[in-house]
């Protein structure tokens, strides 16, 4: 890749620049900063949309009373039940069990505290999901 071939499409980097290695005119490698690449943005967009769609799906499920808000907040933090289990210090099978709203509603305050701390949110936030 030559220096003038380094993609400079303003995309999702949001002002953050990324270093790329490229050949300059004398055939020497230099670091060139890139502000983004459209084709990369397509790929990243697909992944981000994917996450957003799953999150939206979960949010609706929570409002419909099928899942507990814990599931929503876990996905918002890009965690899996296993990661959340290790982070909160609660066995993974219990975490998965707490995704059922009727069981989540009966949880002790101490357990909720651990979840809230693991997800870095307040307990009030943990009990609810945004309405839209």
């Amino acid at each position, binding site marked *: *890749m030559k220096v003038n071939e380094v993609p400079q499409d303003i995309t999702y980097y949001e002002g953050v620049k990324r270093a790329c*290695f490229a050949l300059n005119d004398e055939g020497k490698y230099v*670091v060139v*900063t890139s502000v983004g690449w459209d084709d990369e943005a397509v790929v990243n967009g*697909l992944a981000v949309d994917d996450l957003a769609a799953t999150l939206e799906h979960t949010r609706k499920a929570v409002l419909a009373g099928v899942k507990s808000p814990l599931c929503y907040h876990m996905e918002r933090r890009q965690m899996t039940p296993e990661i959340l289990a290790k*982070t909160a210090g609660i066995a993974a099978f219990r975490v998965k069990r707490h995704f059922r709203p009727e069981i989540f509603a009966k949880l002790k305050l101490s357990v909720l505290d651990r979840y809230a701390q693991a997800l870095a949110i307040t307990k009030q936030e943990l009990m609810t999901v945004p309405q839209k």
Partner: protein
Amino acid sequence: MTTELAANGKPYVHHHGAHCETAVTSALFRYQGVDISEPMIFGIGSGIFFGYLPFIKLVHLPVTAFRYKPGAVFHKAAKRLGGDFVIKTYRDPQKGMDELRQVLKTGQIVGLSTNLYWLPYVTERHRHNFNGHNIIVLREIEGGFRISDPTFGDPVDCSADGLDQARFVPGPLNPHGYMYYTKSVNPHPDLRGACIKGMKDSCSLMLRIPLPIFGVRGMRFLAKKIIKSPDKLGFQEACRHLAGTVRWVEETGTGGAGFRYMYAAFFHEAAGLFSSDELADLSKEMTAIGDNWREFSLTAARIIKQKDKAEETFAKAGGLILKCADREEAFFRKLQKVARQLKA
């Protein structure tokens, strides 16, 4: 490039780097007065690799690694260049933060392994749960730390709480506050010997691992999977998997084309060091291989955008990887011969 001051007033030059680990290692050496660039560290530490790990999943997608496992490049490069490092992990976060402050007061700069998701200065879109992001702490400031994150253009400020969270977040493969700083560094390292060791090691990593998922074999394995994926998984799901692969090639701080350009830069520097034409040729060949990987990313993006439907197919994308595999196999076979003849 920006100059900052460490705790004892010694100037520290912040270089914008492509990859966190190699750039941090290079910065630690530079701070001690050994001028060694990021690609050199990458080559000496045998960073180049390929591995397709379908059984390890991140965000429900298999991992495709273009570099050797996190931490290994630092260890190998430090050993081969004769740098002695203090390496520590902690059970108790409070103790870890206290010791960090003490070491900073002695005028050292400290490398840390952190979780990328919890670093407060990273924007929402770039966050993901990755437990091996390397940064350098320069000094303590009011309410936090001054941090040189080589993947950012300039040094940044980070709150103490945020750093604590990022260093000690529990979970799988968590960093446990992993921290390293220089004890002593050989001021005149044997660069030539270290380069030869790095090259030989890379050759065996790429060619000799007798498993079908590593090295050039791994590339062929992945290529075949990609070619079959639309029939097996359906178009949408196949696109997701392809996008996942491309993110590993371009997005994970590789300096472009899955570290291949950085590796070419290493050969460019090594050619000057050994004044060898063969290494210069290898550098050009590596650049061409990098261009080939770029073409793969481009093809993949077009498939996902559904442009030129007839022309851009999964078979073409897979074919490009097969081509990369063939070229890289030839490259490393040649490198084996060349490296044997080099004199330290």
